[in-house]
């Protein structure tokens, strides 16, 4: 099935970047969990390794088919993800529990991760079907706005502000890049400027406070503000060269909240300092620039938009998470791709980069056409 031309086109640079991230992630997860009292830490680390094994397999599976299948099945995948989002909301209502996961035995599945990818596919499908133009008017775009807002609203209802805003931001970036008329953009901005204060006035006092606290965690020093303070201490105390592997005191003493999930970067920055952290940031930058390059190099419009959407999805998640733990962005609670613990996130991240690789490998397939 895989012909030789495909193998020849395998993107070793992209693969190397991914491997480097996986390696760092393993070591860092070990450090973050090995001091957790009892068997809990070891269990988390083992599961992390397992998830990586599964998601690497999925990465390779994503290479075996022509990515145009995604275009064909795009809307079905989208519908399934909407259905699952609705189900998880209803299921959460029934069990009166958290409304983000499906628990199937030990495996829990987060439909919002699938929703992210399906929005990327639908975006690419939509723009590849539109007549090629420099800019589009609102009346040509309203459908895609709707397709993006529906899953975002459902996820917001879970409530998962992090994932919802990521979907909105990366879709926005893709739409901007596809081109939108200046006048249409102006209309959108004006509408936003009018609606925002109207919504704000209609919020209850406690809702306003929640929003303000979210924007500025210092307003809640005993809650979110405490997390950020500890995270900043952890990162800052790493100084130039870090405290060394397994030597992060913030980590060991469990000052850091959620140190193996959302705040995993603080663990890394404490132990590896500015040197290690900037290297990690550089790796992410390479990954994203490579992704954009793949988008540029793809010869068909669907592949182009698909690569762009996936890359923007990765970029915004990485940026928002890092900005959050460093205390320059609101605490939205989004994992750091590749690094954070979490099966669903890992699987869909690896699937996404698998699709990137897929697009790269098939970029010459249309030469003959």
């Amino acid at each position, binding site marked *: 099935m895989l012909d030789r031309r495909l193998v020849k086109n395998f993107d070793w640079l992209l693969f190397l970047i991914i491997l480097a991230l996986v390696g760092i992630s393993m070591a860092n997860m070990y450090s973050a969990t090995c001091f957790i009292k009892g068997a809990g830490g070891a269990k988390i680390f083992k599961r992390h390794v397992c998830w990586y094994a599964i998601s690497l397999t999925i990465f390779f599976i994503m290479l075996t088919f022509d990515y145009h299948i995604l275009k064909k099945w795009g809307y079905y995948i989208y519908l399934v993800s909407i259905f699952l989002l609705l189900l998880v909301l209803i299921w959460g209502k029934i069990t009166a529990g958290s409304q983000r996961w499906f628990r199937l035995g030990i495996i829990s599945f987060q439909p919002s991760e699938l929703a992210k990818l399906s929005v990327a596919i639908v975006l690419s499908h939509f723009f590849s079907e539109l007549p090629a133009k420099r800019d589009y008017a609102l009346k040509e775009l309203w459908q895609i706005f709707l397709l993006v807002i529906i899953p975002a609203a459902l996820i917001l209802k879970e409530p998962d502000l992090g994932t919802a805003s990521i979907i909105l931001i990366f879709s926005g970036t893709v739409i901007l890049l596809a081109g939108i008329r200046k006048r249409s953009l102006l209309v959108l901005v004006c509408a936003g400027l009018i609606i925002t204060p109207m919504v704000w006035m209609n919020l209850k006092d406690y809702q306003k406070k929640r929003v303000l606290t979210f924007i500025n965690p210092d*307003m809640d020093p005993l809650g979110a503000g405490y997390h950020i303070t500890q995270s900043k201490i952890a990162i800052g*105390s790493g100084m130039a060269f870090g405290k060394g592997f397994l030597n992060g005191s913030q980590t060991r003493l469990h000052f850091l909240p959620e140190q193996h999930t959302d705040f995993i970067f603080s663990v890394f920055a*404490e132990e590896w300092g500015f040197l290690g952290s900037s290297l990690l940031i550089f790796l992410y930058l390479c990954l994203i620039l490579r992704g954009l390059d793949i988008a540029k190099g793809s010869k068909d419009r669907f592949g182009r938009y698909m690569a762009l959407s996936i890359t923007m999805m990765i970029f915004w998640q990485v940026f928002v998470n890092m900005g959050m733990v460093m205390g320059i962005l609101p605490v939205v609670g989004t994992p750091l791709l590749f690094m954070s613990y979490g099966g669903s996130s890992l699987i869909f991240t690896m699937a996404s980069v698998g699709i990137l690789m897929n697009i790269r490998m098939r970029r010459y397939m249309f030469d003959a056409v």
Partner: protein
Amino acid sequence: MIRLSEPDSLNIFQKRIWWLSLFVVFLFFVLLLRLWYLQIINGKQYRKRSENNRIRLKEIPAYRGKILDRNGLVLVDNKPSYNLYIIPEEVDDLGLLLNRLSKIIGLDPQSIQKKILRIRNHFSFKPVCIKRDISLDDVSRIESNILMLPGTIIRVEGKRNYIYKELAAHLIGYISRNIRGKSGIEYRWEKVLSGEPGGMQIEVDATGRMIDVISKSPSIPGADVYLTIDKRLQQKAEQLLKGKRGAIVAMDPYNGEILAMASSPSFDPNIFVDGMDQKTWQKISNSMDHPLQNRAINGLYPPASLFKVVVSSAGLQEGMITPRKKFICTGRFLYGNWIYNCWKRNGHGEVDLHKAIRESCDIYFYNLGKMLGVDKIAHYARMFGLGRKTGIDVGNESTGLVPTSRWKLKRFGVPWQGGETLSLAIGQSYLLVTPIQMAVMYSAVFNGGILYKPQVTKLIKRPNGDIIHRFKPQIKGRLHIKPEYLDIIKQALIAVVNEPHGTGIKAKIKGITVAGKTGTVQLMEKKKKEEKEERHNEIKDHAWFVGVAPAKHPSIVVAVIIEHGGHGGSASAPIARELIREFLKPHVR
């Protein structure tokens, strides 16, 4: 817009991707700058902080709003209290620490054990309160030994202070140990009184001294609640009730403002502030006197002769009687095989409505009650607001009970008996009312037939001057009775206090026309009572009096109930008189 050719479109796309790449690089550069700022510029500081990471979380409690009387006199505020806390995270040996602490300030070992268990389940950075309101001596003893007591801190916090102790205790209510309103105004306005606590992250050194404030959000103080009661009048009312069991309600009949509300026996809300031991609580809650009960709104009593106003209105409005209609009172009334007595054994002779009310003749009302029947009477009782809550904006109000023939059948499975109608007509039988209902009912007779909702909250004001609640009269219902009929009853009620033979003559004040009605709740059948003599205080009747003054355009209505006080005219009327006199003092000289 023109459609683009494929190469053109790719060209544009690639150009835009290039700009996007630049944007991405820029944002990552921002991250790098932030990292530089945290790790290189401030790295040393953070490193030091991480080495002795002693960041304490400190809640900044909000100042609880004051409670004031209608003239702005402070009734409840807060005073500073020294509270002892332990931060579990900073304690090496908890047993040892508690041992030392108990030696210094004498904690009881049993409660220590309990506290240890509580601390274990606690988020370890949050201070746990060990003892509240420790003395200044103890504070200095702990401060001088602070190095031996790692993890111990003393905080100055506000403590609820009920300045006049028992004054209006039922109305004001009390708070629980965690400063939540549990009853009365403290409960009703908990949300606005409590304000919003703030918080602080502070960095401390090894001895717990503050080095730096890392982050802080101020607390928002609670709002002040102004009551409609007048402290002077309230104090007088409580004085008058001293040593008795009973209640007084004084209200403005034209808008429902409560001017005073007293219930006796009372309690001192300060005992709840620090929490109390099981024993004290048992003693209070199981006491025969029920000191926590607000009898003014929660106590249920038969209205006795106070109810005659309702039956009179019903008779007039239904056309059963005219003011001139007379019945003969011989002191006894035969009904079937039963004899019903008038309180005056040798009878009132010829009685018209005016005389019947003035001298509270039972025989007149037996006759009238028999003509009306139970359900007509019940209809008018409900019109006067009985059998449902007055809607007062505080406390745990009782509904009371207005019996009907249907109610009797449902409740007991037995039909209503004609004789019970006679008891009902003089306010006995199953009929139950609260003192506040009586105040509202008599107000309606004098204010033109309006049932106002009683209210005790005059004003709620935020510390910044914002007013979030202002008293507004609220009408709960109206009497559908012709004004001239109400006038006839009013004249009779004036006669009760001011004419010879009036039962309420003891409420008379020189220079002011007081109107009113007495009531005496018979607790047992008269015969039995005679047998038992009056050995026990318990057997004495409950004494009612409702006074209204000045009768022409009243500014106050006073309802008084004294449990086992004896006759309304002798036990309660003088109390109402004193209170009215106190209220109208400026006008009386």
